[in-house]
């Protein structure tokens, strides 16, 4: 599968990583909803590490749409809260 880290790069990852990535992703959103900033950053870092270490950057001449797009690595907790909680997910 192809994963993009927004504002960074695209990587090709083994399909087996998909489940792990999804789990971390959903846990990260749960942390955002719980207002647990440290936990969120920890999980998000784990996601980025997984993609960067297991993935190979796409070649210059590869033009492919990503299967998964992760948020920019410098995403702040405030931004994450605005994007991933509240409206539509947990209406306040």
């Amino acid at each position, binding site marked *: *599968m192809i994963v993009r880290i*927004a504002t960074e790069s695209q990587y090709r990852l083994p399909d087996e990583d998909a489940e792990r990535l999804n789990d971390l*992703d959903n846990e990260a959103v749960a942390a955002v909803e719980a207002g647990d900033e440290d936990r969120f950053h920890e999980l998000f870092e784990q996601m980025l590490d997984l993609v960067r270490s297991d993935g190979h950057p796409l070649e210059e001449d590869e*033009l492919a749409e990503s299967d998964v*797009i*992760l948020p920019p690595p410098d995403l702040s907790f405030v931004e994450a809260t605005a994007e*991933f909680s509240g409206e539509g997910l947990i209406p306040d």
Partner: protein
Amino acid sequence: MPGMGGRMSVVIKSKINKLLDRAEDPSETLEYSYQKQMELLQNVKKGIADVVTSKKRLQLQQQKLEQQVVKLDTQARQALSQGREDLARTALERKQFAQNELQSLDQQVAELESQQAGLIEKEQKLRSKIEQFRTKKEVIKAQYSAAEASVKISEAASGVGEEMADVGMAMQRALDKTEDMRARAGAMDELEAAGAFDDNLQLGTGSGTDDIDRELHQLTSQSVVDDDLARLKAELGGGSEPAKPSLESGSGEQERGA
């Protein structure tokens, strides 16, 4: 692989997809939107120029503050050698404030530098992807049947489109941060205009504490200023006299150079 991704990635993916305007016929995307891509590339160039301008401005402030630190230290030394511990303390408070500002400026300049490098890299990558697409499209047309070519070209077009949307996002984030720093730099300029760093410590005049002094008093760490004051005293007095706890200026000090 449809339906892939956790909640966070799905939100981001749909956000990126919204940034893409897809042409009716994907195979024609780049033909029709050539102007758009060129505009985006121009915008990225402008974004980079903005970042550089902000960086230069911050660097100018760094230089000014560095000069102030030296000047205020000298003033504190002069004040102390004339027995004016109160003035010395004010000068050291200002110096401490300037040093704190310098530290945060250093971080900001470093951050702008990495943003500048990141944007330059993204711009080059996008440019090369657009060119790749242009050549690839012709090759695909020549090698495949019309139907197959259309599918392959449309896939490649999505890839380029996503790259364009991603560069757009990177640029927006860089500019937002630059905006914050500009606001901060503006606030520093105002503070400077208000005289926070001015050479207005007149030795010998009464110099009551004004608003700026009171503010500085609150902003600066007293213990750092105390340490600094002790250092100057030791330097000036050769360590012979223990620091007097009293702030009553001048009384009983011999070293005054009348």
